[in-house]
């Protein structure tokens, strides 16, 4: 579970940094860049989550004899 705690902090850090960059860019008046930053941060986190979800589904499949 240790690496999971690390990755949950990673996700939270990505979220906070993205929020900060978003705010700064918005203050500078670059609205479109700000929305792109949010989107890219979201996709990065989405990849982490989806890899974990795939792992979970594979485990469930092997354990509950779905093959």
């Amino acid at each position, binding site marked *: *579970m240790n690496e*999971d*705690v690390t*990755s*949950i*902090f990673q*996700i*939270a850090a*990505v*979220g*906070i940094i*993205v*929020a900060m960059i*978003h705010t700064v860019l918005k203050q500078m008046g670059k609205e479109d860049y700000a929305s792109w930053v*949010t989107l890219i*941060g*979201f996709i990065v*986190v*989405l990849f*982490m*989550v989806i890899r*974990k*979800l795939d*792992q*979970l*589904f594979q*485990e*469930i*499949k092997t*354990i*509950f*004899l*779905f093959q």
Partner: protein
Amino acid sequence: MDIIQVVGFALVATVLVLILKEQVPMMAFLLSLFAGIVIFLFLIGKISDVIDMLEQLADRSKVNMVFFQTVLKIIGIAYIAEFGAQVVRDAGQEAIASKIELAGKVLIIVLAIPIISVIVETIMKLMPV
């Protein structure tokens, strides 16, 4: 002491979700989904021990393996459907969540068709026509 790990992990995840919820709600949703997946993965290991034990019991008592596999599949469907429905409900989509639950119920009843038909046939044999 596994429960302490789980609760500690869940508390940390909750605090982080609350921090993120104001600024980036999407990220907060993904974080809570991730926390749910991690806890579920942690539990799956324990569940597999229980299922191994059940498998041995079924093996010894000469239960037909097809029925046992069906029951296991039903349990698996119930777990997955519950997980998905809770995540979706957490994101505020009550309607989609109840559709997931409906799909889980329908798929379970489809899997149970062979068992139900065996029961009905047995009863028909028992009844004097």
